[in-house]
């Protein structure tokens, strides 16, 4: 059983293609962390496939020395679904953008997540259309001025994690391009989850939407604007871990620890909660009112479409016996002409 795998390094996962993102783009960091994670997964390189749609982010597969499919806009989750059904033995990754995944591809994303195939989806959220040079995306905030919204966007933005949770996700997480340790850990957790993992990565597009996540990456402010979720631990944040989140009915509120509040009064994170209501509530915490949670919001075990498909086939093979086409053809009423 124990196959001797050659020990691979991140550089073994670099393809021979020139990386063509803008200098300074957050995508570089995500690629770097991914290349760190891949060799640690115990999966041979040739068993991995990266599938993407169209967008700057979707160029990702070209840069990873695995199998790859750079498809058409928005369809990567559906392609991955077919691939995973055909080949449950493969580790399938989907790389998508906020436009690719939530605009044109929203429906496929939703259905891939609810089917819970064992696929890992990483959405690079830069809150803009990068590749087409700067139109607003479904995650751009209200009022955002872009090429297609000179007077500011008037569409309420979508929140990727709220949607994923709204459609029965079993693994939901968030990380940040520049938070490299956290990102690495998050990608690894996603890879290890059995079922569809959905990871939102805040990614800076320094050309068309520079600084969109400055509040969360700026050294000075990030301790107050970001809160790291840990399973079973209370929600604590602040430079000196002096602040926490407490639940008031169904509403989270920020409290200062010490002044009559201690850690036990805080909201404790439970990524394994049966129902996703807590994960949903956490997905609503947004800057500037709240620190934004990063980490794993939800990780539960549910049946996986690909495995169920395999097992239905196995079961039917067992109960109905040999699949003999000649027998099928000759079933029912037949007659012979002589």
């Amino acid at each position, binding site marked *: 059983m124990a196959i001797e795998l050659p020990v691979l390094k991140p550089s073994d996962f670099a*393809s021979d*293609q020139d990386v063509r993102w803008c200098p300074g783009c957050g995508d570089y960091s995500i690629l770097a962390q991914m290349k760190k994670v891949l060799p640690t997964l115990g999966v*041979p*390189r*040739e*068993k991995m*496939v*990266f*599938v993407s749609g*169209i967008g700057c982010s979707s160029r990702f*597969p*070209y840069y990873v*020395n*695995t*199998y*790859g*499919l*750079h*498809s*058409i806009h928005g*369809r990567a989750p*559906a*392609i*991955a*679904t*077919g*691939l*995973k*059904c*055909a*080949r449950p*033995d*493969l580790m399938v990754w989907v790389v998508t953008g906020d436009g690719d995944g939530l605009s044109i591809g929203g*429906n*496929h994303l*939703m*259905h891939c997540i609810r089917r819970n195939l064992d696929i890992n989806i990483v959405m690079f959220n830069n809150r803009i259309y990068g590749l087409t040079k700067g139109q607003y995306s479904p995650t751009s905030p209200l009022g955002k001025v872009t090429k297609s919204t000179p007077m500011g966007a008037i569409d309420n933005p979508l929140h990727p994690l709220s949607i994923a949770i709204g459609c029965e996700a079993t693994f939901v997480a968030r990380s940040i391009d520049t938070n490299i340790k956290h990102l690495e850990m998050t990608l690894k957790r996603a890879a290890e989850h059995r079922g569809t993992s959905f990871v939102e990565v805040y990614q800076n597009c320094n050309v068309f939407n520079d600084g969109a996540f400055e509040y969360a990456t700026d050294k000075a402010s990030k301790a107050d604007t970001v809160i790291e979720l840990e399973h079973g631990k209370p929600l604590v944040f602040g430079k000196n871990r002096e602040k926490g989140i407490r639940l008031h009915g169904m509403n989270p509120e920020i409290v200062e620890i010490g002044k009559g509040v201690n850690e036990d009064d805080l909201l404790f994170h439970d990524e394994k909660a049966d129902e996703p209501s807590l994960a949903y509530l956490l997905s609503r915490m947004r800057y500037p009112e709240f620190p934004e949670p990063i980490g794993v919001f939800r990780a539960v075990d549910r049946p996986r479409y690909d495995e169920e*498909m395999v097992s*239905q*086939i196995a*079961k*039917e*093979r067992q*109960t*109905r*016996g*040999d*699949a003999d*086409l*000649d027998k*099928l*053809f*000759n079933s*029912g*009423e*037949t*007659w*012979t*002409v*002589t």
Partner: protein
Amino acid sequence: MATSTEGISKNKQVIKLEGATVRFAGDSGDGMQLAGTQLTNTSALAGNDVATFPDFPAEIRAPRGTLAGVSGFQIHFASSEIFTPGDSLDALVAMNPAALKTNLSDLRAGGILIVDKDSFDKKGLEQAGYAKNPLDDGSLDSYQLFQVELTKNTRNAVESLGLGLKAADRCRNFYAMGLVFWLYGRSLEPTRRYVQTKFKGEVADANLRSLEAGRNYGETTDAFYSSFQVDRAELKAGKYRNIIGNQALAWGVVAAAKLSKCELFLGSYPITPASDILHYLSEFKHHGVKTFQAEDEIAAMTATIGAAFGGDMAITTSSGPGIALKGEAIGLGVMLELPMLVINVQRGGPSTGLPTKTEQSDLFQAVFGRNGECPMPVIAARSPSDCFNTAIEAWQIAVRYMTPVMLLSDGYIANGAEPWEIPTMSALPDIPVEHPGPRSEDDPPFMPYKRDERLARPWALPGTVGLTHRIGGLEKQDVTGNISYDPANHQHMVNTRAQKVNNVANDYPATQIEGADQGELLVISWGGTYGSCLTAVRRMQALGHSVSHIHLRYINPLPNDLHGIMQRFQHILVPELNMGQLLTLIRSKYVIDAKGFNKVQGRPFGVGELMDKIGEYFS
């Protein structure tokens, strides 16, 4: 076939016929499809050649008794080889006034008309929009009208079983069957067997009693003074069964998967009239078939692409509007040069159009309906049983040339049935599929777009050591498959993809000419109009006219010998159930003044109308 004459009247005159065309028509709830299917099977078992044409109401279930709710099933059985379900009816069974109204025009003068007299009450007549009762006003004088108290008789037949009226009335179709079976000297035995496997308890009893009551009615009442006999046809020796088009397609793809040692993956989204293929294949889990009901057609198509990349025999099934949605993704399939089948069971268009009616109007979409220069092979089935071979052949092309292939069927083929000579799997030729093997670091790097002599690229499967590669929808460099924006490379790749598809024609068998290989008129058909065109041409040949027929299974590329054949005829006629789509291909490719004969009325061509059209060339 010991039972084949059971039920033939001993008391009454029996008239021998070459064949007959019978239609059951009634409300969608009246079980007309079942009645038709039983007569089909029974006739086939009696050795006739058969062909059928079910005609459903539009998708929605209309209120009982209304014109919109009428459902029909036509069957043509004969003692000679036949290719169509028949033009005009020799006998029509109308279970209610609405059925009479919508079907009468297809009954030939002097034909047999059996009606359920009981249903011609005030409400029934109103719902059908009859101001006067047609049974009384002389308007049916030119037919042999038999007014049977079908409802009452059925109720009587099952009375002792103590069913409710509703349940009793549900046996009316069996009564009608019994009567028709008597009329054409058909055995009740196959239907008895059917009832015993499909129904239980008193429902089974009731159906059987009604069936027999119907038969006895024909035998004993004075109304019917004669019955008919259609002898066995001289069919090619072999073992036969009836098969429906969509069923044959489903079986064909399963067979193709086995012959190519691939696993079968179907990505589909339900749509009339293609859904049944999904239903059949969903039942084939024990054959290892994976069926994925996607969220929409785009997902169905792209999942198919994903499965093809993974190494499955990946197919998708849909109809016109769904294929329209798949266009962008089919283009990706063409760019990726992966084998897969796109199956279009055509229906009436444009837009939602006539979802339950047949048409051949998606040929343009098949050949041209994508952005850019995006050629793919297109192949069309010609009849229900032919779907089996077409599926296999489409997959052969797909893997031999590493390309998506479009397979065209239509609503008429999909739901029609005909006898099928049962093949033996071991006698079918294998479909060779090769995947490049693993490579080591010392081997030269793998080139995903390096081509063989047919211009096909290798089908390298994820999981194979040393073949990691990345493909996509951007233009690719020749040989390496890397992204390339080079002008000359783009031209080369466009040419190469086109040439590859053109190469498919090198494998075609010679085009069969029905009739002389030169002459006055050549009739060219494709798809589901095969049967009526062939029949019409044969009849015109029998009348001494210089007309021949060829049927094109291959729409793209067209056969290499087509031009030569056409040049040996004075005139070319291309009948199609569209406004001239194959015609456009032929005229543009060969600059030949072929003419179209076109019809879009949701129904197949009648042999008669084709003969009339052909006749114009000889008058």
